[in-house]
């Protein structure tokens, strides 16, 4: 439609039945069937009918074939019912001979008058209605027009005057047109007050209370993003940030298709956010006034009538924008293929790349993006053809009179985008309700129906936010480049919230480290068996000297091999000496030795004592040493250090979990030391071994009831200069890798226990593998992190029906299979 309101022709008011033409053809004559003729009377008739409001007067018509009345406000008569008053006047030819004059009001699209009034001769001769008209008439005069008021819904209207008996040919009818039009629509935030109690549909009971709070917080954040007049800015971008602290607590949950899987990422995400966050939107409707300007709300809102308002959404063409995002080429290819899925099936906005319902998104599915907002609409229904859109009717009375609202509910999927438009779709003329209910891009609606009153929001983009606490063992630990990690995950729609608590968290760690150490050593539990077997080698204190100038980058200090071995030796000598034997010469020698040596430590006198023993006695001591060394796991230096390092890792894990409890917030905790253990040497110095470094994730933190997840990394930021070294990767990459595990991503193909089908088969550089040069998340990981369901028994070609009750299709590691079929 080129203009609003649309053009007018008499065809808009044409009758579909024979009645009108049959009545018009009966002519005017006396009772001739009785052979009786009337005295010839002077004919009369109506020559004009007009309406006037302020300085505007309508045009009177007499020719059913008159030229089309052009669209647009320029030459049209419109007014704001109730708000403004109209004078209805007509002119008669030979008024003294008038008999009756019938006024009839027609709505657009119907040949049956909706209101009629028959005036007797005296009233007709007055040539005007004796009362000013505000768009309403007494209820008894209306026929099948419940509003009893002219409204936008059925505009334009035709007011016709018909002369009764003895009207002269050509002076029987005159008519004029009027419009009730919407001046403008403005779109506002509805705010959290319009949210119903409780969480959105589909949210698991575990999350419902928090999700409801988070949903309100989202709305609080959004309502700050408005223009000076409080309306929404179509050029704005709104991040709908969903708090998503869901972490792997069961190893098989990283492997979506595994028979042991319980709650993979997409299901966990669904449990927390269900059908998506709800965002109330309110459109204010203004009725154009004849005097200029417009009126909103109050009694004048009744003039909106049953006008339908179309709520529509569109999304960005993400494929077209991929090239601008700095993605790895493989990722771009994978996403280009996969986002193309069923883009033009007619069940979603044409070209939309939002997550399809077959991958648990909303595009193309039955889950509505527009829910009814009861306080802000009298009714709402999905469109019949433009199935992703909905139409609603406005509130006409009360606090919200003149408004129509909707509960916008975007999907929970990361990086899905929505721009919401609301169109008025009055029934009358071109561009009516049916015209908008078509499958076409939003841009085509604007092109074809641009003059219709409408308003548009900015672009909403869903993001998933994860709280991550990064805690270094002490200030001596080189800081990972957190921004690099955040940037990579943001590309996949995940916002890493590092917060501003790192220093406080490190203080908490420093304060409680020794206490936690003592508790863990005392009761390691079955999750720390190496602490049970090797905990005795750890030094009880001085594990952390934060703030004392003696910061350490390792997690714990344990006795080095030489120190540990010597202790065994001393204990063995003591055992030999203390043995109950007849005439214990060794004991006597030992006692004499004590009287001549002032050393306080066993090793300072027992080892020399041992050196002075005879070969035979030494052999006996050696036997004891061997036995004790085996019992203590000190068979070899390598096994000792391996076990101690394992114990240190388990200790760190336990400390990290206690830290998690101390922080007491849903989120992920990364505890960073550059090494799990430092070895105390005989001279008192501490040596950090070059091996045994890396990352470990996730912890078995499911026992913390979803409070969070922890992992530890033992690496310096500056990697080994030897690229072939096992741990030459900077800690930043390792943290990104371990965070991936915490976020349900399994190893990529060249790493142990990988899930080849859950990564891009063509991308060998996913950071979830062990390739030291990997630097990005693969495309498959991207879509998993967005919250896509990626596993189904069938693909889109062979899909035959619901799968596991979810109806999803497989996301192939070969992205060419994910293309639009």
């Amino acid at each position, binding site marked *: 439609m080129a203009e609003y309101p649309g053009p007018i022709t008499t065809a808009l008011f044409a009758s579909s039945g024979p*009645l009108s033409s049959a009545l018009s053809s009966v002519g005017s004559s006396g009772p001739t069937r009785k052979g009786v003729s009337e005295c010839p009377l002077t004919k009369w008739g109506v020559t004009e009918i007009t309406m006037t409001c302020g300085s505007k007067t309508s045009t009177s018509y007499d020719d059913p074939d008159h030229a089309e009345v052009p669209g647009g406000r320029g030459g049209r008569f419109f007014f704001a019912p109730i708000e403004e008053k109209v004078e209805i006047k007509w002119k008669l030819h030979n008024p003294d001979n008038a008999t*009756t004059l019938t006024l009839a009001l027609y709505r657009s699209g119907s040949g049956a008058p909706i209101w009629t009034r028959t005036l007797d001769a005296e009233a007709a001769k007055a040539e005007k209605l004796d009362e000013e008209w505000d768009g309403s008439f007494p209820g008894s005069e209306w026929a099948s027009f419940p509003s009893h008021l002219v409204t936008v819904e059925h505009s334009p209207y035709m007011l016709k005057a018909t002369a009764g008996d003895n009207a002269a040919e050509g002076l029987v009818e005159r008519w004029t047109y009027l419009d009730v039009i919407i001046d403008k629509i403005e779109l506002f935030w509805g705010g959290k007050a319009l949210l119903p109690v409780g969480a959105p549909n589909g949210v698991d009971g575990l999350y419902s209370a928090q999700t409801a709070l988070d949903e309100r917080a989202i709305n609080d954040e959004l309502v700050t993003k408005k223009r000076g007049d409080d309306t929404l800015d179509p050029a704005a971008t709104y991040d709908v940030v969903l708090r998503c602290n869901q972490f792997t607590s069961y190893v098989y949950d990283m492997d979506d298709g595994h028979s042991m899987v319980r709650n993979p990422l997409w299901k966990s995400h669904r449990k927390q956010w269900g059908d998506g966050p709800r965002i109330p939107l309110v459109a204010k409707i203004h009725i154009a006034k004849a005097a200029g300007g417009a009126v909103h709300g109050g009694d004048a809102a009744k003039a909106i009538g049953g006008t339908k308002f179309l709520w529509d959404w569109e999304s960005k063409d993400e494929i077209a924008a991929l090239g601008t995002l700095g993605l790895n080429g493989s990722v771009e290819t994978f996403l280009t293929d996969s986002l193309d899925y069923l883009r033009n099936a007619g069940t979603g906005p044409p070209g939309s790349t939002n997550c399809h319902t077959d991958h648990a998104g909303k595009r193309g599915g039955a889950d509505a993006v527009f829910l009814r907002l009861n306080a802000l609409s009298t009714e709402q229904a999905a469109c019949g053809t433009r199935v992703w859109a909905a139409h609603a009717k406005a509130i006409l009375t009360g606090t919200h009179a003149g408004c129509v609202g909707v509960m916008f509910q975007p999907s929970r999927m990361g990086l899905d985008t929505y721009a919401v438009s609301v169109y008025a779709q009055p029934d009358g003329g071109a561009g009516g309700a049916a015209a908008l209910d078509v499958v076409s891009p939003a841009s085509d609606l604007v092109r074809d129906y641009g003059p219709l009153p409408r308003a548009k929001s900015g672009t909403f983009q869903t993001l998933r936010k994860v709280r991550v606490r990064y805690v270094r063992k002490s200030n001596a630990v080189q800081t990972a480049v957190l921004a690099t990690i955040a940037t990579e995950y943001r590309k996949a729609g995940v916002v890493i919230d590092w917060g501003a608590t790192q220093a406080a968290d490190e203080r908490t760690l420093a304060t409680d480290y020794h206490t936690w150490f003592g508790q863990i050593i005392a009761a390691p539990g079955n999750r720390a068996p190496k602490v049970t077997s090797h905990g005795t080698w750890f030094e009880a204190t001085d594990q952390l000297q934060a703030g004392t100038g003696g910061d350490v980058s390792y997690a714990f200090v344990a006795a080095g091999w030489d120190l540990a071995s010597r202790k065994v030796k001393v204990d063995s000598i003591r055992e030999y000496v203390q043995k109950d034997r007849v005439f214990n010469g060794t004991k006597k020698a030992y006692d004499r030795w004590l009287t001549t040596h002032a050393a306080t430590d066993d090793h300072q006198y027992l080892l020399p004592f041992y050196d002075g023993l005879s070969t035979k006695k030494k052999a006996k001591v050696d036997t004891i040493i061997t036995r004790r060394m085996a019992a203590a796991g000190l068979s070899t230096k390598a096994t000792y250090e391996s076990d101690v390092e394992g114990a240190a890792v388990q200790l760190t894990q336990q400390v990290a979990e206690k830290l998690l409890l101390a922080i007491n917030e849903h989120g992920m905790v990364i505890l960073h030391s550059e090494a799990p253990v430092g070895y105390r040497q005989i001279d008192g110095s501490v040596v950090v071994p070059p091996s045994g470094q890396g990352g470990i994730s996730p912890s078995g933190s499911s026992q913390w009831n979803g409070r969070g997840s922890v992992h530890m990394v033992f690496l310096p930021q500056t990697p080994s200069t030897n690229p072939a070294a096992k741990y030459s990767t900077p800690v930043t990459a390792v943290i990104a890798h371990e965070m991936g595990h915490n976020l349900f991503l399994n190893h990529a193909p060249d790493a142990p226990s990988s899930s080849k089908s859950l990564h891009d088969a063509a991308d060998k550089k996913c950071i979830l593998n062990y390739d030291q040069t990997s630097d990005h998340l693969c495309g498959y990981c991207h879509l998993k992190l967005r919250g896509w369901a990626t596993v189904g028994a069938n693909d889109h070609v062979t899909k035959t029906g619901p799968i596991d009750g979810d109806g999803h299709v497989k996301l192939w590691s070969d992205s060419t299979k994910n293309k639009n079929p």
Partner: protein
Amino acid sequence: MTFVEAPSGRLRAPDAMWTIRREQMRILAAPFLEKFVHRAVEHVRAHFPAQHAALGDAGVRDAVVHAIERAEAHGLERDEHVLAYLTLVFVFGRDFDRDPALPWASEALASGKSAAFRMSRLRALALAHQDAGRGYAGGEATDRG
């Protein structure tokens, strides 16, 4: 010759020096009535062809005579009033004036106003309620366009 209605209610020919009784007038007017009935049947044929075909000429004549009787019973004398009334018979039913489903019709006819006013009102209301029409016999509305 045509006659005009005298103030007394009797009929007289223009410039006539004598008056005649109503029964005499009916006899004299028979050819005019027949001519009107023919006109009315043609009106039905033109605007309600399907119903005309279904009823046949005899049936339509019967309907026309019925309409004339009912219109006159309501004080509608003028030919165009009777034809309009006949039109409503073919849109809303043979006894639309007594149909409880069409209260607007009986109210308009019984308003106590002049025949011209009542007919204008009836026409206006009929147009407003035309979607309620079910045809002469109340069956299929084959002439509803």
